[in-house]
C-alpha cells in the first residue's frame, strides 16, 4: 500500500469518528423521537401565548353578529380579519377592547379599485363612491347589503 494511503485512511477514519461524535452532541435533544423533527418544539410552541381565538370562539358570546355575518356576502371573512387578534378579549371582554375599524380606508384595503385584484373582490372607486360618509353609515359591516339608508 502506498504510504500516502497509510496516513490518509486512518486520518479520514478519525475525522469521520470525530464528526459522528460532534454530530451526536449537536443534534437537538428530542430530534427524531416521533419523526424527522424536534419533538420538544411542540411543547415550546404550545407555551407561546395565543393571539387569535377563531371565529367559533366569538360566536359563543356574539351570536347575533355571527348570524348576521353568516347571512351575507362577508360570510367568508373571519371576525378577527377586521377586529384584530382577539384571544385576550375572549378571556377578559370587559377590560380588553378590540378595535372597530370604521375608516373608509379600512374597507378600501379590500375594496378600492385595483386592476390586479381578483374579480370576486368587488371593487369601487373610493373617491367617487359616496365620498362624504363613512362606509358603515350605509353598509352594515357584518351584512353589507343591509343598507342603513
Amino acid at each position, binding site marked *: 500500500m502506498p*504510504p500516502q494511503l497509510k*496516513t490518509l485512511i486512518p486520518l479520514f477514519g478519525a475525522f469521520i469518528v470525530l464528526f459522528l461524535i460532534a454530530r451526536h452532541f449537536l443534534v437537538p435533544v428530542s430530534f427524531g423521537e416521533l419523526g424527522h423533527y424536534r419533538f420538544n418544539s411542540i411543547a415550546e410552541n404550545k407555551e407561546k401565548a395565543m393571539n387569535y381565538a377563531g371565529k367559533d370562539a366569538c360566536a359563543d358570546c356574539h351570536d347575533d353578529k355571527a348570524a348576521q355575518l353568516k347571512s351575507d356576502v362577508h360570510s367568508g371573512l373571519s371576525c378577527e380579519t377586521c377586529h384584530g387578534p382577539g384571544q385576550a378579549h375572549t378571556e377578559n371582554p370587559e377590560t380588553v377592547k378590540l378595535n372597530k375599524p370604521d375608516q373608509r380606508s379600512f374597507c378600501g384595503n379590500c375594496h378600492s379599485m385595483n386592476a390586479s385584484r381578483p374579480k370576486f373582490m368587488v371593487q369601487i372607486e373610493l373617491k367617487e363612491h359616496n365620498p362624504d360618509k363613512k362606509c358603515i353609515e350605509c353598509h352594515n359591516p357584518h351584512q353589507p347589503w343591509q343598507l342603513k339608508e
Partner: protein
Amino acid sequence: MEPQYQHLYEMLSQVRGFIYPNEVDLQWGLLIVLYPYITGLVAGAFILASLERVFNVKVLKPTYQLALLTALAFLLVATMPLVSHLGHPFRAYEILMTPHSTSAMAIFGFVYLWYLMVVLLLEIWLDYRRDIVIWSQQTTGFKGRLYKILTLGVKDLSPRTVRWDDKIGYFITVVGIPSAFLLHGYVGFIFGSVKANPWWSTVLMPVIFLFSAMVSGIALVLFIYMVVTWFRRQKIDMAALDSIAKFLFYILILDFTLEGLDQIHRIYEAEESFEILSLLVHGPLFLTLFIFQILLGTLIPLISLGILQLYKPKELTRRIIYFSCSLLVLFGIFFMRWNVVIGGQLFSKSFYGFTDYKLRLAGSEGLLWALVWVILPFLILGFLLWLLPPWKKLEESTS
C-alpha cells in the same frame, strides 16, 4: 388599528398591484445572491484545473495550481454568506446535521464536506506533497513548522511514492469532476426544484447553473492569473492565456445557448405565469437582465472573444481584451445570479403584482457584509500563494 397591522397595511400600500402579505418583504437578499455566485466560482475554477489534468491540456499547465488554490480559497468562504444570512449561529447548523430526502437545503453540508475534504484538499495535498516535503527541509521558523505539519508525516520522496502521488491525484481528479458538477448542479437544483415559482422551476436550472459556473470560474482564473503575473512582474504565458480565453469562449457559447433555450421554451409555452414574467423582465429586471447580464456580461465578451479566434492582434491588445472580458463575464454572471434569486421573489405568486427590493448598506443582509465575503477569498488566496507558491514548484520541477 393594532400597530403591527398598521405597519403591514402601510407596506402593502407601497407595492404594485396585488400581492400576498408574506411576499411584501423579500427574504433572500444579496447574501443569497452571493452564495451560488461563490460556489459557482469554485466549481468553475476546479473544472478548469481538471481539464488540464484529465484531458492533459498541456498549455494550461501554468494555471493548474493557481486554479486549484483559487477554488480552495473561494470554497472556504462559500458557506459564509449562507450562515451570515441565517443568523442564529447556535442553531443554524442544525439543518445541516439532520439531512432528509425531502429537503434539498439540508444536504448542503455533506455535499460541501465531500467536495472540500475528499476532492479539493486531497488533490492539492497530493499535488504539492513532494514540494512540501522539500520546503519543510529548507525552511525554518513558523513557515517551516507549518510545512512539517502539512506533510502529515509522509516524507517519503522515492520515485515510487512520488508516482503514487500522481496516480492517486489523477484518480481524485476523475472523481472530482462529477463532484464539481454535483456541487454546482445541486445549487441550481435548490432553485430549479421550487415548483411553486415559475421563474425558477425548470429542469434546465442545474445545467444552466453549472455552465454559468464554469464560465465565471474560468473568467476568475484568467483574471487572477493576469493580476498575479503582473504583481510578480513576470512575463505572461500568452499560449496559456489564449487557450483559457478559447475555453471561456466555447463555454460561454454553450451557456448562452442553454439560457436562450430555457427562455425560448418559456416564451413558447406561455403558461399562465407568462404575463407576469414578461412584465418582470421588461420592468424591474430590465437593467440587470438585458443590459448587465446579456449585453455587458455575455454579448460583448462573446463577440470580442469570438473575433480573437479568427484574427489575432498584438499581444498587448489581446491582453487588454482578455482582462476586460474576464471582468465583464464576472460582472455578468453575478447579475445572472441576481436575476434568478432576486427576480424570483419580486413577483407575487398570485401573478398579479410586484414587491420591491432595496439593497441596504449596513446590517446583516447589507452591502458591507457582502463585500466582506467577496474580499475575504482574495486574502485567503494571497495566504495560500504565499504558503504554496505554484511558481516555485514549477522552477523546481523543470530544473
